[in-house]
Structure formats: structure tokens, C-alpha cells
């Protein structure tokens, strides 16, 4: 029995000195391993009188469990301590910069184009994209701009031959749609357009969106409603529209549409040249001749059309003063458009 007590005390004593799990596991093997000291006690069983052997075995097993529990307790403490030390070693400076995940961006003109398309798609518009190089017929004649028309001087057009040219507007999309599709028609025709102009507010290539509605009984009031909704989505709900008379050969009546200045909200500032209004697009009721040339009965149906410049709206919306910025494609500029609005 003395032997058992000694062993217990010895285990306790040794355990006190242990400072790492590695030492602990070695010590554990020394005491309670297969060939450990406790098991060694059992080996001496043959010297114990037979009647006491059962009792002895029981006591030794108790000792084994007891010592094992001392080790378990100690192990817990040591594991915790060592884990803590390990974490401490792995400490990082969380304020060091992260490994950059580059996010790309759509071009601002396409961000605005998408916003405009989505605004109108929600109102039932489909999208039609026609060719950029088109015939004189689709670019002019079918839009009520015959060869002798002074409106031909309104835009300087790039030509490939007498009848083939770079479209100066997206309006041919109107004609191509009406030729293919019977009313009701609600389409948007976005795309690149070209005019011989190059300065801070004009680019020889720019982008427009043409909108067209052909149905029974559409009027100027519908145009106003449509455009009010559009500016509410593109700018904000406080933005108001204003019509003023204008002239386009393919619409009659024709209007220029102004919106309240998004910078000064109509009070007058440098952006709106003190007027409180900014011109954003041209629109009107589709000229009866244009409907008829495309084979639509102008006594039954009427149409609305509008054409807007994406550059202009983008520049107003994002405060860009020189149109050329949009085509320089400097990544420092483009990367700012990785947000959606």
C-alpha cells in the first residue's frame, strides 16, 4: 500500500514540474502507459497473497484513474496556454493593407445607357439596334428629310458613297422597326452615332437613344408623362420637365425637353447658365409622313418619338465638363464607376 501512496505522491510531484504538453505526454507514458509505473505495480501481483489480489487490483486501477485525471486536468491547462502562445506568435498587424481584389467597371456611358434602358423597359419598351452604317434612305429620306432639305445642314455627316453613310442619329431605328413590326410598338434604339464635330462638348462619335411609341391615340400628354417618369428615374423625383417648341423634320409638333437643373434645382447656376433649366433631349409626335412611309396608317395610329444624347446626360449626372474625358479611357477615371448609381 505504501508503494501505491508513494507512486501517487511521486506523480503529483512530477506533474507539478511539467511545463509543456510534450513533457506531459512523456510523463503520462511513464506513469500510466502500457509499460508505465502503475502497470508495473500490477506486475508485482504474483507476490501478493491470492485473497488480497482482487483488492490490490482494484486499488491499483483506482490509482491509475486518479493519476490519469491529474494528467487530464494539467493537460487542459497546458493546451490552453500553448494555444494562446501559438496565436500570440501568429499575431498580424490588422492595419496593414489587404491584398487588393480589383473590381472592374462598366463604362460610364454604358452605365447611364443601362439605367435609361431599364427605366423604359419597365414601361414595356423593347430594344432594337440597327446598323451604324446605313443608307441615305433610312438616315434621312424616310425621316422626312429629302435631299434638298435644309435640315441636312443641321448635321455634318460622314459619307462612304453618295448613299451610304455613318448614321448621324439613332432615328433610322424608328423606321427599321416600323417596317418590320405592326403597332403597338414601344422600342428603344440605342447606339453609336457620328457627326463631323470635335470640341469640348462635341465628339465625332457619340451615343444616342431613340425612343418610339406607335399606338392608337397617343398624344403630346403621353410624351410628357413618359419623359416625366424617365427623368424621375434617371435624376430624382424632384426633377421637372419643360417642353418648348422646336423643329425636327420627323416629328410634328416637335419639342425640346428641358429638365430642372440638377445642381441648383432651378435657382440658376453656372451649369444651367442661370436659367434653372438644362436641355436634355428632343422629342415630338411622329410626323404623319414618316408613319406612312413606313407603311403605318396615320389615320388609325399616332406615334411619339424622342432622341437623347447619352454623353450629355452622363456629363450632367456625373459632373463631367469635357466630353473627351469619356473617350480617353484613363483607368483612374474609369475605376470610379464601380458603383451602380
Amino acid at each position: 500500500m505504501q508503494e501505491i501512496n508513494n507512486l501517487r505522491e511521486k506523480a503529483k510531484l512530477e506533474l507539478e514540474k511539467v511545463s509543456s504538453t510534450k513533457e506531459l505526454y512523456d510523463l503520462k507514458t511513464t506513469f500510466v502507459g502500457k509499460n508505465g509505473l502503475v502497470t508495473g505495480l500490477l506486475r508485482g501481483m504474483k507476490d501478493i497473497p491470492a485473497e488480497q489480489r482482487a483488492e490490490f487490483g482494484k486499488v491499483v486501477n483506482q490509482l491509475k484513474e486518479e493519476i490519469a485525471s491529474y494528467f487530464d486536468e494539467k493537460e487542459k491547462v497546458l493546451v490552453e496556454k500553448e494555444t494562446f502562445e501559438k496565436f500570440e506568435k501568429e499575431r498580424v498587424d490588422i492595419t496593414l493593407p489587404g491584398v487588393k481584389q480589383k473590381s472592374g467597371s462598366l463604362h460610364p456611358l454604358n452605365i447611364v445607357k443601362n439605367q435609361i434602358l431599364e427605366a423604359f423597359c419597365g414601361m414595356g419598351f423593347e430594344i432594337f439596334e440597327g446598323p451604324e452604317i446605313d443608307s441615305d434612305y433610312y438616315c434621312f429620306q424616310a425621316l422626312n428629310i429629302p435631299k434638298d432639305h435644309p435640315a441636312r445642314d443641321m448635321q455634318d455627316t460622314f459619307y462612304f458613297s453618295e448613299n451610304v453613310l455613318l448614321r448621324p442619329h439613332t432615328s433610322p431605328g424608328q423606321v427599321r422597326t416600323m417596317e418590320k413590326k405592326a403597332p403597338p410598338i414601344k422600342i428603344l434604339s440605342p447606339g453609336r452615332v457620328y457627326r463631323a464635330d470635335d470640341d469640348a462638348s462635341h465628339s465625332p462619335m457619340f451615343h444616342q437613344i431613340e425612343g418610339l411609341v406607335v399606338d392608337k391615340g397617343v398624344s403630346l400628354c403621353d410624351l410628357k408623362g413618359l419623359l416625366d417618369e424617365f427623368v424621375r428615374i434617371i435624376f430624382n423625383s424632384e426633377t421637372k420637365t419643360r417642353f418648348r417648341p422646336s423643329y425636327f423634320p420627323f416629328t410634328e409638333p416637335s419639342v425640346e425637353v428641358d429638365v430642372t437643373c440638377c445642381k441648383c434645382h432651378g435657382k440658376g447656376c453656372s451649369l444651367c447658365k442661370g436659367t434653372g433649366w438644362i436641355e436634355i433631349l428632343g422629342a415630338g409626335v411622329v410626323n404623319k409622313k414618316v408613319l406612312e412611309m413606313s407603311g403605318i396608317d396615320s389615320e388609325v395610329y399616332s406615334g411619339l418619338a424622342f432622341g437623347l444624347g447619352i454623353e450629355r446626360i452622363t456629363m450632367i449626372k456625373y459632373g463631367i465638363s469635357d466630353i473627351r474625358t469619356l473617350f480617353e479611357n484613363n483607368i483612374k477615371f474609369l475605376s470610379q464607376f464601380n458603383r451602380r448609381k
Partner: protein
Amino acid sequence: MKAPLSWLKEYVDINCTAEELKDKLFSCGFEVEGMDYIASNINKIVTCKIEKIEKHPNADKLSVCQVNAGSYGKLQIITNAKNIFEGAIVPVALDGATLFNNETISNGEIRGVKSFGMFCSGEELGINDDWYEGAGVNGILIFKEELPLGEEVKKLLELEDVMFDINVTANRPDCQSILGIAREVSAVLDLPLKMPDLSYAKDFDVSTTATINVNNLAYDLCPRYISHLVKDVKIESSPLWLKRRLFRMGIRSINNIVDITNYVLLEIGQPMHAFDLKDLERNNIVIRRAYENEKIITLDEKEFALNKENLVICDAVKPIALAGIMGGLNSGIKDDTVDIVFESAKFVRDNIRKTSKALGQRSDSSSRFEKGVDSYTTEIGMQRALNLIYTLGCGKIAFDNYDLYEYMVNENYINTTIDKINGVLGIDVPVENIVNYLERLNFEVNVDGNNISIKIPAYREDIESYPDIAEEIIREYGYDHIKSSLLKTCSITNGGRNDQQNSIENIKNLLVGYGFNEIITYSFVSEKEYDMFKIDKTCKEHKFIKIINPLGEDLSVMRTTLLPSVVRIACSNVNRKNYDGRIFELAKVYKDTRESESDLPTESLALSFATFGAEENFFTIKGVVEGILDNFCNGCKVEYKPSTTKCMHPTRCADIIVNGAIVGYFGQILPSICDELNSDKPIFAGEIFYEELTKYFNDKILVKSVSKFPQIERDLAILIDKNVLCGDIISAISEQNFANLESIKLFDIYEGAQVGEGKKSMAFNFVFVNAERTLSVEEVDSVMEEIRKLLLEKFNAERR
């Protein structure tokens, strides 16, 4: 169109301020783009009488004058002017005065003598002899009259006016005149219009038709031609009022006859011309097309060789005017002109435009005709010119004329309904308003219930049907009456993008997700770009079309590939010290597939991309290509084969082959091209022929069940000839369709001394799985054995 307020007031008793008129004009479609308050800046310049002139004690060229400036008292003024004399009445700018050119005057001392102002020349008042005789003299303006002293000169000389610069839209050529604008002012202010006087006394001893012969041989280019003879003309200076009108409009007074033609152009909008009768060979006037290479020298002494596209006015033998553009030097008004023939004509606008453009000869007359002149104006223009001859008393006016026209549309009516008009607008404008607005605009209106009959003024050739009428009404009624409604009568339609349009957005968004910035570049490039990128005549990309009238050579070729533009932008970013980046453009390219000039070229979409920066290499851009194909061409057989694209590094570029077809290429751009574009960093780039790729699009999601059973992995390292391509090894294995082989992946490659000259070590990872059962180690290992044998036989690859 420039219009002075003072002139407009001659036809309409304008009862509002210039600012209010500007707003009114704006509301009815005539935007005032500029307003110049003429002479409003001139201040404190008054009349004074020079009472005494003495030499300046310290300066030879200066005089010291004592003047009487009325209520401003007696002043001492120093001047260097030579044309002054004692007793002269002159303008003097007092202390604090402002001149026409905004210079200010203050008291000063010149060489020890004080001066309390400055005498003014005509120029300093913004005028010349046309405004006040003597104002053009090189010196001080000396008044001819005995004017009150100390009075504001700008009041006495009526210098003040407001000049409107009005934007007239192309459909309203009738408003390219003071009278035309006055008609609109009268309508929008609801005030009566006082027409210019068109009356004159005829001299029954003078006959146009008995004196000359006029023949129109080109009605298609000259629908109306009026000639009127005026005899015994006194060529002299025009009256002051006429000179002042022209002066305000920036036109120099020449003589009464020339001034009358200019005045009628401004006032009525009708270009006029006057021929000297004695210059007309056989007293003949013929309107005809020029002969091939026929010559004319115009009034400005320029000679032109003409052709049959040009219209000329001729006498019996020779051209005497370039119709509608400029008179001939051989028949103009001279000091000794006695009898004149006035011309008032309508020439068709596109012929004038083409001739003017082709010859490079422009005039006020030609630019007016280019906008369109109506027949009515042709008639009243002549009447007004004759009225001015009569009023000025400077000639005997023939009682008859030639008025040549093929047909005359006298009266134009539109018969429509109130409902149709209101239907265009979407609101109900009350009938009495409709009638009122139309009558203000000189339409004659007859309403019968819903029906309305409208007679159109002769000068309104733009009015064709009821939508035009609706526009006339709403621009007077006011666009603020239009109320929003949202397509209430329209059918419901289903909107949105179609599948193709969605795919484009999806592919762009994928690239944005990979960190690419979208760029937009011009569709036209320089032909030199093709040389730089080594796209020679053997390449299909060389079939481009060129713009006839480009802004410059740099913007003249419609691009057939986007890659050069994208690489150029990549290099320009490197130049601007944006050291790393990923960019792409998805846009059209244009290929010349035309059989004739009137055919359209083929437009197709292309996708080009470029990457640059420390972390980019051939395999990062390849990863992007693989990502695109994984996403959009699911299940297709994709291969990469060495490409022969000439702008690429010859051993670092690949063609992308999907199901056997080339759909694009990518690789490293030739360093020499980067050098040329001033980029010292390598650029990786590629182009996908988007519409080729879409043929293999399979972006539908079809779920393949994931096996519940464990997968078994095996690695195999081989030693192989270093020139064997990885892709060939993988396809050789894939082609065998080994049972349960799910994927093969290269995970290590090594060349070096350890593996021996001409060899490389490659390590592949193989994954095996079966959807229905757990695989046995034996069956997997037997496949691995077959793979090993295959590689040995095919590539002489040994297990390592």
C-alpha cells in the same frame, strides 16, 4: 436672325420690355440666343461748344480748349485733334464717362495742364458716316446742327437699341426677315401687324415688256421670276433712315439702288438684284442652266467656270449673274447707270446650296435662298423695292412687269376637325382659343361644329396638315398646358432585353467581375494603325471601308478589329503611370463585304481585352479566356493552338478554337509595337469574334447530379520531351474516355538539371468518381496503368 427692337417696333406697337419680349418669343419657339443693348454702356458723353483754343504750353501737338458744356458748366479739355475750331459743337466725355468700347474717362493732367474730359470721335460713339455724316472723319465728330449744350449725345443721335439674335428653326424660312419676326411678335403679343407700305405710282410711259424680253428656260430651278423696269434712275446717297437701318445690321451703304436691294432682303426676306439696262445685250434676260465651262466674273471680281448644274441669268449672249448668289461684274449698278431692271425671284434652295458650295461663293442672297424663299415673298419683295424707289423719288417705275411662273398655288386650305387637332395635343383647347391663335397668325378660319377649315398664309409653306396646325396652336397657347399622362390609350407590351442582348450584358458583367474596366474608343482609326499592327493585305481584317470626308486621316478607316484600339489605350494608361490594369471593349467592327457602292458593309460585334501590370502574364489572360468559355460555351470542345497573328509575340500567342472553329486569339503583344506606343511594360491582349462565339453559346443551366460516393485521386509524374504540349497530353487522355475519369489537372512542371537536357517533368492529378457506387482501388489503378502506357506509347513519357 438679327432683329433690332427699333425696327420691329415699326410693324408692331410692342408694349412690353425687351426682356419680356425675349420670354414671349422663347415660349412660341423663337429662342433669343443673344441680346445686345447697343450703346447702353455709353455714359456721360454730352454736347459742348468749343469757345477758345490755345496751344498747350508744354507740348507742340496738343491744344488746350475752353468749352461750354451747358449744365455741366465751363470746362478745360486737352486734345490732340486737328479738325476742331472755335465755335464747333462736339461730343465731350466727362469725368466718369464710358465710351462705346467700354473705356472709361476721368480727369487728368497732361504735361502740367489739367483736362476735365475728352472730345470724342464717331468711332468712340460706335458710329460712322452712315449713322451721322461726319462721324467717319479721322478726328473729332463735329456736329453740323446748332445742338443744345450739355445734352446726352446718345439720346440726340438715337444710338440706343436692343439687338435680338433669334434662333429660327429650319422649318420657318419665312421668319428669316424683320417682317417675319414682326409677324410672330404680333401673334404672340396679340397686337396688330402694320405691313410695310407696298404701294407706288406707275409711270404709264415706261413699260417693262415693251423694253425688254425675259425668258425662263429652267422653271425647275427657278419657279418664279419677276422683272421690273425703272427708268431715269438718280444714283445717289440713301436717306439717313435707310443708312441707319443698314448700319445697325452691319451693312455698308453704297447708293440708293444697292441699298434698296439690301434693305428688302433684310426687311422682307427677298434677295433682290438690279441690272443696268444698257449692259443687257439685245435687252434680253434669259434664265437657264450654264453651259459646260461657261465663264462668269462676279461683282467681287472672281471668275468661275460653270457647268450645267449651275443656274445663270443671261442676256442674249452671256451670263450676267450667278442666279441667287451674285450679280456679274458686267451688269452691275454704276454711277452712270440710268435705267435698271429689278429682279425678284424664287430659286430652289438645294440648287443654290449646291452651286454655292461647289464654287465656294457665298453671299447674303445665297444663304437666304438656301433656307427657302416662298413665291409670295418674291412678289411683295418686288413691290417693296418699287415702293422705296417711289418714296425716295429716284426713278420712273414701269406700269407692267414680267412675272414668269409655271404654276402658282394660290390658296392652300386644310380641312380637319377640332378633335383631330386636340388629339395630337392630348388636351382640349377651347374652340375660341383655337380660332383666336390661328387668326393672330394670319390663318383664315371657318368653324362648323367639329369641322374646321383653315386657309394658310401664302408665306407658310411649312404647314401641311393638322399636326402642323396643332403645333401652331400649342406654341401660342403654351406648352405648360400639356399635362402628363402615361400612355393611357396604349396596349400593354412586354418590354426588356432579348436573349442576345442579355448575353452581351452578361459577358460584360463577367469581365467586370474579373476586374476589367470597360472602355469606349472611336469606331474609326488611322490606316497607319493597320501597318503598325501588321495587318497586311493578306489578312481578312484588311477589308475595311474608308470615310470620304473624315475629320482627318487619323479618323478615316472603319475598324475591322478592336485590338489595336484597346492596345493603344492600354499603352496610354501605362504612359500615364497606371501601371496595372485590365480593360475591354465590346463593339462593332465593319467589314467590306459589299458588291456595289450602295450596299452596306457587314457589321459584327467583337470583344477585345488587354491586361498589363506586374501580376499579369500569358496565363492570367488565358484564364480570362477560359473563364468566358466556361461560362458561355459549356460542353464545347475548346482547344488552344499556336496562332500566326502578326502583331503578337510569335511564341506566346494562341488561337482559341471552339468545336474546331477559330473564335479569337490572345497572347502577348509584340514588344516592338509596345515600344512604338511608348509602353515599356508588356501588354497581353486578345480579341474574340463575338458573333462567331455566340454560335457555340450554351449558357443554359443543366444540373448534373453530384455523386454521393467518394472520389479517388491519383497523381502521376512523368518525364517527357520538353516540346510536348500539355494540351496534347490532356486531349490524348481525354479522347480515350477512360471509365470514371472525372478530371485531369496539371499541378507541377519542372525543367532543369535534375531531369536532364531536353526533358521536362510534369505532374498531373487525376480524379475518379462514379455516380452510383464507391469505386474500388483496383479499378482506378488499372485505369492509371492504362494512362501510363498510353503516355509511354504516344509521347515516350516515363513515369518519374
